[in-house]
């Protein structure tokens, strides 16, 4: 389960996950990032691979010049020299009126199923849960309207056949799911960045498959940590995080807020 001994000395799992997350953001993209690891992924991307990416959040911040790591989406660090900080209701216009301008949204969750349906609400019964979390936040609207990259700890109990509560729709029950439900058909989860690798979704099947595994991790280990059958046949080893990127990441989060 651990990264290979040699690789492990060079970076932690959260570090490689943060770098993998940042790599989902290409220069010039318009992305929505929420609290948690998406914030460090977005900040790292802005400072390295994607200086011209535009990051927005459900608090109404649009295109902050991130210099220091924000602890949440209302942190003024997220808004430094931003293009605008709108009232919150106006942000809804990005989802409902201008979704075509958004390339990618970032979400986190507690449970995910093979079609990328996501639970960030509770474990167990919704009314008397074993564990209760914060709830949707902005996730439901993002998942419904724009393509998403999802950040997960890769554990068997989190990668499940059926989520206990579907906070945010993925591809629902497969290729036709969104059309049947009356949701935007061509938007949905495109990547799941985990502590072990990067998953993507079949163009036709809309089912999750293993795309990349981190150096030191094997596809068999990933299958063992996934609670449903996952196609690992086409997977390749992920690019190692460069020393320079790791250096920037560690300087950025020197207080160990996220990593």
């Amino acid at each position: 389960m651990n990264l290979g001994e040699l690789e492990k000395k060079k970076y932690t799992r959260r570090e490689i996950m943060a770098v993998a997350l940042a790599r989902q953001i290409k220069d010039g993209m318009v992305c929505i990032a929420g609290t948690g690891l998406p914030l460090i992924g977005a900040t790292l991307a802005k400072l390295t691979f994607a200086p011209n990416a535009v990051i927005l959040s459900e608090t109404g911040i649009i295109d902050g010049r991130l210099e220091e790591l924000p602890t949440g989406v209302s942190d003024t660090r997220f808004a430094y020299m931003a293009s605008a900080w709108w009232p919150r209701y106006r942000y809804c216009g990005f989802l409902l009126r201008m979704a075509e301008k958004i390339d990618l949204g970032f979400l986190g969750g507690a449970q995910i199923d093979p079609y990328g349906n996501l639970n960030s609400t509770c474990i167990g019964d919704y009314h008397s849960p074993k564990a209760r979390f914060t709830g949707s936040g902005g996730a439901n609207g993002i998942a419904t309207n724009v393509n998403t990259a999802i950040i997960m700890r890769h554990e068997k109990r989190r990668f499940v056949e059926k989520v206990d509560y579907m906070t945010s729709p993925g591809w629902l029950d497969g290729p036709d799911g969104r059309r049947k439900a009356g949701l935007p058909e061509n938007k949905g989860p495109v990547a799941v960045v985990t502590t072990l690798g990067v998953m993507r979704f079949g163009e036709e099947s809309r089912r999750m498959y293993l795309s990349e595994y981190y150096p030191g991790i094997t596809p068999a280990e990933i299958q063992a940590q996934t609670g449903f059958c996952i196609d690992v046949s086409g997977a390749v080893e992920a690019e190692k995080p460069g020393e320079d990127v790791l250096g920037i990441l560690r300087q950025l989060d020197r207080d160990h807020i996220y990593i």
Partner: protein
Amino acid sequence: MLMSCKEAIDKFVNDGDTLAIGGFTTNRKPYGLVHEIVRQRKRGLYIEGSGAGGETDLLIGAGCVKLLINAYLSNGAFGNIGRRFRRAVERGELEFDDYSLDVQPLRFHAAALGMPFMPVRYLLMGSDLEKKWGIPAERYRQDPKLPTAKLKIGEDPFSPGEKVVYLPVPKIDVALIHVQKAAFDGTARIEGPVFVDDDLAMAARHVIISCEELVDPEELRREPWLNQIPLIIPDAVVHLPFGAHPSQCVNYYDYDPEMMYLYENVCQDDSLYENFLQEYVYSLEAHRDYVEKIGRVRLDGFRVDEKNYVQNLSRRRS
């Protein structure tokens, strides 16, 4: 209009009222007003929340809250879940329902404009937010404090066949809002992000404003376009410097990481939590005692610089 915190909460917040709280998670949260509600041991409150933070968690932890309609509750990276909220739900001590951070501002906006309901497309649809209701349908129908349903699914009357979600407007008794500047006539200015607060002020039956600085009305009236809250809206203006501590207040101060982590720690143990309430709320008579307790020197260390935060502020867990 101008009154003490004690008087404002005593006069305008009743047991069983529905509150809406301004700010967002760790930004401009009206902690001073919330502390006074805890101190006066208000009970049975309903909360219409959206970007809730430690202030709502505190009201739950102190036993003031009966029912929470919300979308998110956390102090961001200072503790990724409102732990007293979580514990109350897991122990069956809190009634709750879930919306999302896009839907709640739209509901508040509709309430502020007097709309009968808010129709939306492509939000909540197809998820368990639509299908599983935290509060049973019958309870919605019977409690006059609640709308008659969480939502209804219907058709767009102008585009037959298109599915629409109808959201009810919230009924808010009291809005609690901390602002940077207010005047004794009731005029108030939020410097920095407004979030949903102008809508809350307009939607609520009563509005309590706390402010960093109490200024002459003339100062605010010189640039009326910068004021979100006109004099006829608030019921009370309370002067509470550092009234949003330990959250951020744009143009004034950054958040207090040590206090955020302290809250996260005490939340994990019932007796530690009780001691915390005793030490930081019940044993203090008023907000000025809280300011003294935190310490002027420490608070001055959070004064924002030109980037509107404290550069290189340590946020290391102690």
